[in-house]
């Protein structure tokens, strides 16, 4: 019955898409990262050019391919050629692609990034360093299918696992997830199967399942990309979870800052409902499941599960002590399963390929892959999916292609505000849920921000404390006041107002906050301070003892100067670049910076032509000029 219904859906999808196969297809990546780089203009240009030249081609919007550094991205499938992906496409290039490739058969290899299938003409993504390290499971379809067309998910075995689950006993589904050793991708790595089992066994009239896409880590975007690129995968995982634990109502909790993810998810939900994959008697079975989106309201702490529930109940998002765990006593006091959306996205794959397959990937303690959002000073920013146990070095220097502008690597911030900053000596650590603890960090949910020689570690610690201090809900004293004191002291140090004993004070207070706080936010908030103290003590010392910022980053500890011997005198570029009229011309035409007016925006240093490089910054500031 269920299989019959599924096969029918699948056949319809295949027939619909087969009819399209023969036409050229232009796909524009219009996830948020693409849009931020101008993808909607590219899309408009493609449409216009296709219409103007009367070309018979289909145009589709797709999600994020993960190569965000090269956005906007366009993929062209032209029968007779390998499918090609183009990077850094602007409107002009888009028009050229339409005319030169589709009309005149010239595939414009000069701005192609990679081919999608092996061929004799152009290398594929698999042949680039990133492709060598990657293993894509939950990102496999991202950027390659239209997230607003359920049929494209269906023809790639979409919802097959749900159909399969519905013919299994719920206990069997739970057992399979348990055997797979799947662990929660929301940060803590809790064994998913055990959580499901607890929730399944918990007595309750109504049970709930919630997909957590609050993604509060500032600098992470895995969940956003997943929902914008392949939302059905998450829905399918959530439906299977609901069946397994015995819930009839589910929610996806999406953060407020992700309007496009909400829109695409909403569309996915209505399409799934229209096909009988959600709602009353799913696929003709006696399992019914309703699904709604709940939008967060911009509070980091609401990613924490008890705070998340509080916000869904219309209260301020303040965490509650656990136990009881939500799996037993959650939303409206009922057993509630909360999983990160990435965790849920693995579920269909595990059911389709089996627990043993999943266990063969990754490390024994953390099977499967991990999705990382590479950001900061790494050259190829974007999303990568690698087997658990990949080293930081392979991630940053392999998949990420090293540091921007060939600068020197300084540290990597992993695990967001709860994580830590690790130096180059940690680069060869394999990353999984358990490996980074000793080094003082944690894998977290996958945010990975790379820092280079220009970044000041004290400043970075201050930044994170400012963040957690703002986001502290204020319920427990250690977190509320402790983070405030840490922040004040760090701020003083970055301003050159550090005192003897400050570093010992920071160390002790940080440890106290870690011990004394109620929820994960406070317990982990000191991590950035503790790790930077541990690995970059000398930078703290330079600030406190010499009033010097070694990275030349702390504004109060640096000053800009123009080296008279280097200044061309006849060039006025710096003058124009200054927003504060701090650069002035002396009677002998030499340029000088009036220190009282300088806002230290770095504009003149960037503007000074490379043949002169006359602007320098120094720390501590020198007396006179």
């Amino acid at each position: 019955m269920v299989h019959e219904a599924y096969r029918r859906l699948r056949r319809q999808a295949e027939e619909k898409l087969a009819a399209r196969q023969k036409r050229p297809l232009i796909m524009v990546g219009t996830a948020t990262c693409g849009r931020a780089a101008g993808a909607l203009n590219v899309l408009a240009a493609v449409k216009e050019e296709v219409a103007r030249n009367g070309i018979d081609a289909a145009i589709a919007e797709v999600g994020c391919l993960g190569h965000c550094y090269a956005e906007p991205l366009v993929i062209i499938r032209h029968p007779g050629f390998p499918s090609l992906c183009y990077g850094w496409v602007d409107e002009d290039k888009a028009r050229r692609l339409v005319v030169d490739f589709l009309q005149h058969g010239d595939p414009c290899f000069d701005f192609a990034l990679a081919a999608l299938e092996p061929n004799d003409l152009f290398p594929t993504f698999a042949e680039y360093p990133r492709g060598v390290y990657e293993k894509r499971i939950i990102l496999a379809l991202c950027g390659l299918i239209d997230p607003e067309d359920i049929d494209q998910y269906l023809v790639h075995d979409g919802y097959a696992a749900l159909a399969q689950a519905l013919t299994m006993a719920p206990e069997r589904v739970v057992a399979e997830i348990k055997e797979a050793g799947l662990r929660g991708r929301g940060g803590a790595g809790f064994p998913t199967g055990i959580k499901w089992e607890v929730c399944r066994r918990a007595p309750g009239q109504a049970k709930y399942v919630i997909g957590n896409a609050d993604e509060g880590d500032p600098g992470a975007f895995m969940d956003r990309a997943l929902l914008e690129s392949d939302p059905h995968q998450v829905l399918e995982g959530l439906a299977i979870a609901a069946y397994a634990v015995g819930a009839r109502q589910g929610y996806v909790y999406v953060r407020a800052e992700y309007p496009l993810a909400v829109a695409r998810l909403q569309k996915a939900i209505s399409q799934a409902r229209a096909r009988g994959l959600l709602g009353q008697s799913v696929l003709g079975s006696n399992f019914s499941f309703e699904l709604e989106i709940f939008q967060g309201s911009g509070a980091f702490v609401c990613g924490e599960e008890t705070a998340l529930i509080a916000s869904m109940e219309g209260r301020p998002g303040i965490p509650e002590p656990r136990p009881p765990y939500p799996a037993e006593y959650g939303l409206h006091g009922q057993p509630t399963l909360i999983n990160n959306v990435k965790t849920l996205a693995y579920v269909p794959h595990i059911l389709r390929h089996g627990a043993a397959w999943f266990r063969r990937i990754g490390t024994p303690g953390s099977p499967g892959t991990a999705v990382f959002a590479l950001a900061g000073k790494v050259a190829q920013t974007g999303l990568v999916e690698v087997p658990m146990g990949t080293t930081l070095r392979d991630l940053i220097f392999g998949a990420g292609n090293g540091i921007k502008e060939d600068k020197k690597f300084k540290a990597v911030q992993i695990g967001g505000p709860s994580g830590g900053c690790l130096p180059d000596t940690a680069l060869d650590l394999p990353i999984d849920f358990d490996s980074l603890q000793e080094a003082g960090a944690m894998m977290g949910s996958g945010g990975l921000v790379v820092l280079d020689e220009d970044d000041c570690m004290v400043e970075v610690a201050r930044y994170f404390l400012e963040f957690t201090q703002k986001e502290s809900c204020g319920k427990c004293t250690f977190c509320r006041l402790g983070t405030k004191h840490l922040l004040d002291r760090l701020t003083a140090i970055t301003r050159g107002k550090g005192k003897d004993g400050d570093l010992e004070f920071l160390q002790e207070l940080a440890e106290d906050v870690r011990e004394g706080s109620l929820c994960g936010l406070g317990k982990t908030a000191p991590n950035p301070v503790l790790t930077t103290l541990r690995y970059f003590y000398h930078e703290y010392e330079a600030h406190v003892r010499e009033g010097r910022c070694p990275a030349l980053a702390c504004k109060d500890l640096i000053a800009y100067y123009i080296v008279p011997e280097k200044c061309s005198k006849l060039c006025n570029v710096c003058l124009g670049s200054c927003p504060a009229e701090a650069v002035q011309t002396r009677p002998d035409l030499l340029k000088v910076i009036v220190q009282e007016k300088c806002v230290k925006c770095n504009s003149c240093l960037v503007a000074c032509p490379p043949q002169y490089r006359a602007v320098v910054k120094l720390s501590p500031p020198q007396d006179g000029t």
Partner: protein
Amino acid sequence: MEEQLHAAVAAILRQYDHRRGNLLPVLQAVQARLGYLPPEAMEQIASAFGVPPVDVYSVATFYAQFRLKPPGRHQFKVCLGTACHLMGGHTVLDCFERRLGIKEGETTPDREFGLERVACVGCCALAPVVVVDGRVEGRVSPTRVDGLLLSFSLEKSRRETPATPTNGGGGSPYGA
């Protein structure tokens, strides 16, 4: 004005049943409609939900998303998430503050521009990022800030000049 506001909120309230779990969705819908949460609207919501107004205030002030003051006609949200912070988000914010003469969280006196900060819009790969009237822009440089403000002020003068050319000092007191 007051009546309009009341009617707008009432229309939204009719779309939801008034159990506590719908408080955030209702506040979100009201803000989406009005641009912010005026005190009268919060009182109206409180009485519909049968909770004391202070409950609604405490929810509205807890969550960063809610604005208690009206936004500008054009709203800039500068991202200061980790990636944007490292890639120069503060310089971008400084540029806006200097050019507009306001601080983050404020609106220009003519209500033309509002400036806010956000903690990450998930576009970190293209940092630094600014959300301009709901549209995300990546790789924003200080010169791009000037460009944005210039195009909006041109738009403003176009908006104001073709209207009846009143004699002597017509149009906006703040000029273009």
